[in-house]
């Protein structure tokens, strides 16, 4: 594959869309501060005993894997469970990841009319180095910090077999209708 299969515009747009989804869906309260910074390739910052939630958005010419790295520590659990104590942490966290991926999917639908989204799956963080085996055209990892307390990792991995070029709006209106989306 050539180096230009995914254009720079498309890569920047994907980042923007993913950041917007992360900021709006991974934060539990409207006032929570979510900081996203680029991390070393392959999510090297992620602790080896951590886990990954993997979700895939498939289109005709590409597949996009969205990966969230998490540690099931007390701070993370407290943040995402909040008042809720009935349901297990993983169930709640998978639902949040699903909403985050759904927001990305929703925005991508404006540029790619045929898309489908998978259900989430949990793997060990040790799987991350093997993303290279998928021969991705775009692979980028980020460190996500919420309120300086909860640390997560995020990886975008896009494999394409046809040129991908699109420009997502720089300041899309924050979509708050996620609760109504059905996956």
């Amino acid at each position: 594959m050539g180096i230009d299969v995914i254009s720079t515009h498309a890569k920047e747009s994907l980042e923007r869309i993913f950041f917007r989804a992360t900021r709006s869906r991974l934060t539990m309260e409207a006032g929570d501060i979510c900081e996203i910074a680029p991390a070393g390739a392959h999510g090297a910052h992620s602790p080896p005993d951590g886990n990954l939630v993997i979700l895939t958005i498939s289109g005709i010419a590409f597949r996009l894997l969205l990966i969230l790295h998490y540690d099931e520590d007390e701070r993370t659990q407290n943040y995402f469970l909040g008042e809720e104590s009935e349901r297990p942490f993983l169930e709640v966290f998978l639902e949040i990841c699903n909403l985050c991926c759904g927001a990305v999917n929703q925005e991508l639908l404006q540029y790619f009319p045929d898309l489908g989204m998978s259900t989430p799956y949990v793997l060990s963080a040790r799987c991350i180095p093997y993303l290279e085996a998928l021969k991705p055209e775009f692979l980028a990892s980020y460190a996500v910090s919420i309120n300086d307390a909860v640390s997560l990792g995020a990886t975008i991995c896009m494999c394409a077999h046809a040129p991908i070029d699109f420009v997502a709006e720089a300041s899309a209106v924050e979509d708050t209708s996620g609760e109504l989306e059905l996956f």
Partner: protein
Amino acid sequence: MIQQVLVAALAGSAVTALVALAAHRLASAKAMRRLRSEADRQTETLSQASAAQSELISIREQHMQELEATLAGLRDELKTQSDSADSVRAELKAVLDSKDQLAHKAAQLAAEAARLKGLAGTFERWHEQMISLMTQNQDMHTKNRELSSIVRHVVIVSLNASIEAARAGTAGRGFAVVASEVRALAARSEELSKSYRDSLHRNDLTTTATFQDIQAGGKMITASLSSVESLANQFQATLH
């Protein structure tokens, strides 16, 4: 005297009669002249009327001819129009037939799209197979962890054996060789176990990515088929 009187009376009568005759003749001639001139005038009027009548008749005939010509023209026109109406009717019938065929095709298309949505079941089957494959991978992870734990134990045992062999002095020399060999085998097993663990992780990622792609692709196809079905239904509805 009487004779004279009589003669005079006769003469008087004769004169009167003559006068009367003359007067009558005059009057008759006058009346004849008047009647003749009247008759002439009447004849003149009649001939004038007759001329006018014949002129009128000729105009009427002309009109009649014109009307007949118009009628013939209209008859031709009617025939042309009727032919053209027939051809339009035939065309309309052809169009209606083709519309029916299109509606039939649209219905077939909608039914086909609806049928193909059954592919969702196939994708679901693949997804179930992925779950089963991943469960097997998890099982292999567990077995590998167990193997790794055994290998670590063997390393400790071989170290202990080396220590015991050293304590035994020359008598334990042979045992030391065996212990060292066991340690070397344990180290190789450990390497193999690590490599196997890495392979399993690689397998986990590839399997998950592949089957998620199948699952998401399946949803994409199902959604696209739904939109094709809805378009075909709309098309069919506009044709009816």
